[in-house]
């Protein structure tokens, strides 16, 4: 559910940054007040925890695995505000360091998963677990449901964000410029996966960890359960919490936003997005529309904003969609299934061409009960390996490596924004050329880029873009033999847009990652007036990610060594949730220790950091050159 660059228009991204900002602000204020001096280590270590938990492969019923986001457990242990910060920080690091999720879409991803996800999960947990004892089964149930509701709320929001793109952003020929599917497709497509696998993974991990904590460390559950009947144990860790009444205002705000952002969600007909702006001006189209909407003529000019989207009318879907498809979402799945097969074949082929060494038969030969452990261990090691690789290339010599980190950050961000904003394919191709030149002059090997970035993006985005070729309404230029699916001009260019944008933006962000040591990224953030506390949070989270990865890795290795025979589904799930629980307990311990260590060196709640040297003139010149390219692209690609 990490929205990549290029799927959302820059204005949508800006709006979501705007929507997230007040929540971040309030969260920071509230958490500071609650925990004053412990804020930094607490948020950091839990951010790291959330990051590492996202790497756990959870065995799900039916033999599949999935991974959770961890917003449910974060909200239950930390309360919604600290959870917002922790999950947001983890998402930020995933985007700017691991290239998971777009840089322009950080606001959107934080809003969906960090903010709405955490708040919904917390509300559900409090509501269902109301007045239940800390050790009751009802709390476990509430936790599972909280995780499930949280991740699905986040997925629904993401689907809505995708779905409004083709309504709002098309070029003159009706080609969708960003995510190509209307709400009628995007919502079922997103929700199908999340109501099942991802939701289940979140449910398993949240319920499992809560049930583990009830036995091992019930103190950690107290924060979000002020209404639980008191036990004889120690005094409350955080005394005197009444989070609910003070939160009401923001809840109302959130509710209003949920209604307003998707605007016409109530009006979702099967034909959403099947019309274009020109329909409003074209006489015959107006007649058609009128006929389909109870003989009411639509306004002559496309109405603005809410009006436009809520002017309900349902055109017969057959007007545009391939004739074999009665329902657009069904069509999506049929063509997606075909597309997936095709893409997988292409990827395997390319991978085979570029493979340097044969892979170990570890996974295929091992027993099924071990597979999820293996995969988690591999994922954890993969993250470490990537960080080492990035550190090595960042210390090498090359054009980007020698740029001042602030110039790099600013310049590459400018280019990424340009990639997200241009409306012409040839401009995108020019930007792709620019990113290739940057890679070559920085001695980043193209095969490495290919295996690390392009194939992955192709697999993911290609799967999404392919059905658009057939599903986007417009002028048919070709029909598939036998199936008679029409390939439309608009569909083709829309799919190309999506693929190109995603590829170029990920290439640029991976260049930033591979050519800039993390410390310098942090330093340059200070230059852009990012508050000290955020920079420190990021730095510390990143640092503890590796400690927790090490811990998790050791834990799984130990389990692997002791695993004899086959574990059954529920046992495997218990094992995974138990590991997450142990990790959570360690994280909390670590938080306390780190806080003490900080205090011992004079930390009193406000962190001070070193701000480094000023920009030289040559730096400014290079920065203007990079931004010049971005602006040129924006102008040329209007």
């Amino acid at each position, binding site marked *: 559910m990490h929205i990549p660059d290029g799927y959302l228009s820059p204005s949508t991204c800006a709006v979501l940054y705007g929507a997230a900002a007040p929540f971040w602000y309030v969260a920071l204020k509230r958490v500071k007040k609650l925990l004053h001096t412990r804020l930094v280590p607490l948020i950091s270590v839990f951010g790291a925890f959330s990051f590492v938990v996202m790497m756990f492969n959870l065995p799900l019923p039916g033999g599949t695995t999935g991974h959770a986001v961890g917003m449910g457990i974060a909200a239950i242990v930390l309360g919604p505000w600290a959870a917002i910060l922790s999950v947001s920080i983890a998402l930020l690091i995933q985007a700017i360091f691991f290239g998971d999720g777009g840089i322009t879409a950080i606001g959107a991803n934080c809003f969906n998963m960090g903010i709405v996800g955490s708040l919904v999960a917390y509300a559900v947990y409090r509501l269902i677990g109301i007045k239940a004892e800390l050790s009751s089964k009802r709390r476990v149930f509430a936790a599972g449901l909280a995780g499930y509701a949280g991740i699905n709320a986040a997925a629904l929001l993401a689907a809505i964000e995708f779905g409004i793109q083709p309504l709002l952003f098309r070029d003159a020929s009706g080609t969708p410029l960003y995510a190509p599917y209307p709400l009628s497709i995007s919502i079922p497509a997103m929700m199908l996966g999340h109501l099942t696998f991802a939701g289940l993974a979140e449910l398993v991990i949240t319920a499992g960890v809560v049930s583990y904590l009830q036995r091992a460390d019930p103190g950690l559950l107290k924060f979000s359960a002020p209404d639980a009947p008191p036990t004889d144990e120690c005094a409350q860790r955080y005394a005197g919490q009444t989070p609910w009444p003070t939160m009401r205002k923001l809840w109302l705000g959130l509710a209003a936003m949920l209604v307003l952002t998707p605007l016409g969600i109530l009006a979702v007909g099967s034909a959403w997005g099947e019309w274009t702006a020109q329909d409003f001006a074209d006489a015959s189209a107006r007649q058609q529309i009128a006929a389909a909407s109870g003989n009411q003529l639509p306004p002559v000019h496309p109405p603005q904003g809410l009006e436009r989207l809520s002017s309900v009318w349902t055109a017969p879907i057959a007007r545009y969609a391939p004739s074999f498809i009665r329902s657009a979402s069904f069509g999506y799945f049929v063509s997606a299934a075909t597309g997936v097969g095709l893409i997988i074949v292409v990827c395997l082929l390319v991978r085979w061409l570029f493979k340097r060494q044969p892979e170990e038969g570890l996974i295929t030969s091992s027993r099924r009960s071990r597979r999820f452990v293996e995969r988690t261990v591999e994922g954890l090691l993969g993250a470490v390996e990537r960080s080492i690789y990035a550190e090595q290339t960042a210390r090498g010599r090359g054009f980007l490596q020698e740029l001042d980190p602030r110039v790099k950050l600013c310049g590459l961000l400018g280019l990424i924004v340009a990639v997200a904003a241009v409306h012409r394919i040839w401009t995108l191709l020019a930007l792709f050329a620019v990113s290739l030149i940057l890679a070559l002059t920085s001695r980043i090997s193209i095969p490495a880029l290919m295996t690390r970035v392009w194939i992955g993006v192709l697999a993911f985005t290609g799967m999404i873009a392919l059905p658009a070729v057939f599903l986007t309404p417009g002028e048919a230029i070709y029909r598939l033999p036998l199936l008679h699916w029409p390939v439309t001009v608009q569909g083709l260019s829309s799919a190309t847009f999506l693929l190109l944008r995603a590829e170029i933006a990920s290439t640029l962000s991976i260049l930033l990652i591979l050519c800039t040591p993390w410390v310098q990224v942090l330093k340059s953030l200070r230059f852009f007036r990012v508050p000290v506390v955020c920079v420190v949070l990021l730095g510390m989270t990143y*640092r503890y990610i590796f*400690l927790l990865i090490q811990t998790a890795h050791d834990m799984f290795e130990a389990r692997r060594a002791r695993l004899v025979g086959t574990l059954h589904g529920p046992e495997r799930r218990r094992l995974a949730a138990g590991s997450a629980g142990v990790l959570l307990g360690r994280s909390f311990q670590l938080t306390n220790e780190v806080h003490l260590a900080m205090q011992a060196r004079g930390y009193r709640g406000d962190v*001070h950091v*070193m701000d480094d040297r000023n920009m030289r003139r040559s730096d400014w010149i290079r920065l203007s050159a990079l931004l010049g390219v971005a602006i040129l692209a924006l102008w040329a690609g209007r």
Partner: protein
Amino acid sequence: MKENPHASHLAFEVRDITYRYDQVTALKGLSMTVKKGERVALVGANGSGKSTLLRILAGLYFPQSGDVFFDGQPLSAVDLDEEQFSFRFRRRVGLIFQNPDVQLFNPSVFDEVAFGPLQLNWPKDQIRQRVLETLELMEIAHLRDRPPHRLSGGEKKRVALASVLILDPEVLLLDEPSAALDPKSQAQMVDFLVSWSGGTKTVITATHDLDTLEDIADRCYVFESGSIAAEGTPIEILHDVGLLERARLVRVQHHVHDHGAMHPHPHLHR
């Protein structure tokens, strides 16, 4: 620094303190003193309360009953809330944690060493220079920009030391300084401590490692489940095998002889 009217010849004085965690009592009516310039070892098995005492001396924990004085001044939560006192105290007393991963929370070695002085509001140019000097002194200048999670155990310990020594503290509190170090790094650590203190600095070391006791301490306190079982010079302590056994610092091996008799055989790891 302001003249301290209470200045005493004692660095620390601890009077009858009790410290309880949620359920466990870690220290029970413990009293001790440490003179300025003295090197003291707190010896005891795991969980005997050494670490807790170090944290109390570092002004991180506060005992539920009893008093702690630093240089003749009482040390309490209220006192340490006062900014100027806190700054002066943190400057003069440094604590090295047992687990360097806890102590190294900054994104790079440079930032790690600069953290303390930055919190104490030193001028930034001075900090930059002092950091470089300290890194040179600890022979870790080449690690300057490395992230702490990519350092070896020995390197981590050195960075942790540098991050405290940059403040030039008068009192150094060390929690198991040689834990998890290879023999060579251990020896280097001990050499460093011996040369650094030079008779003017106070060093309080918590350890269960009897090998290095004579090198790092002039006087020892032996801990046994939260209170002090004995006090003396390292030689005196090391010769009292019964005491060491009670404090679970040595293992008594029982030999079974051919004729069936069994006798205990104290076993010193030295």
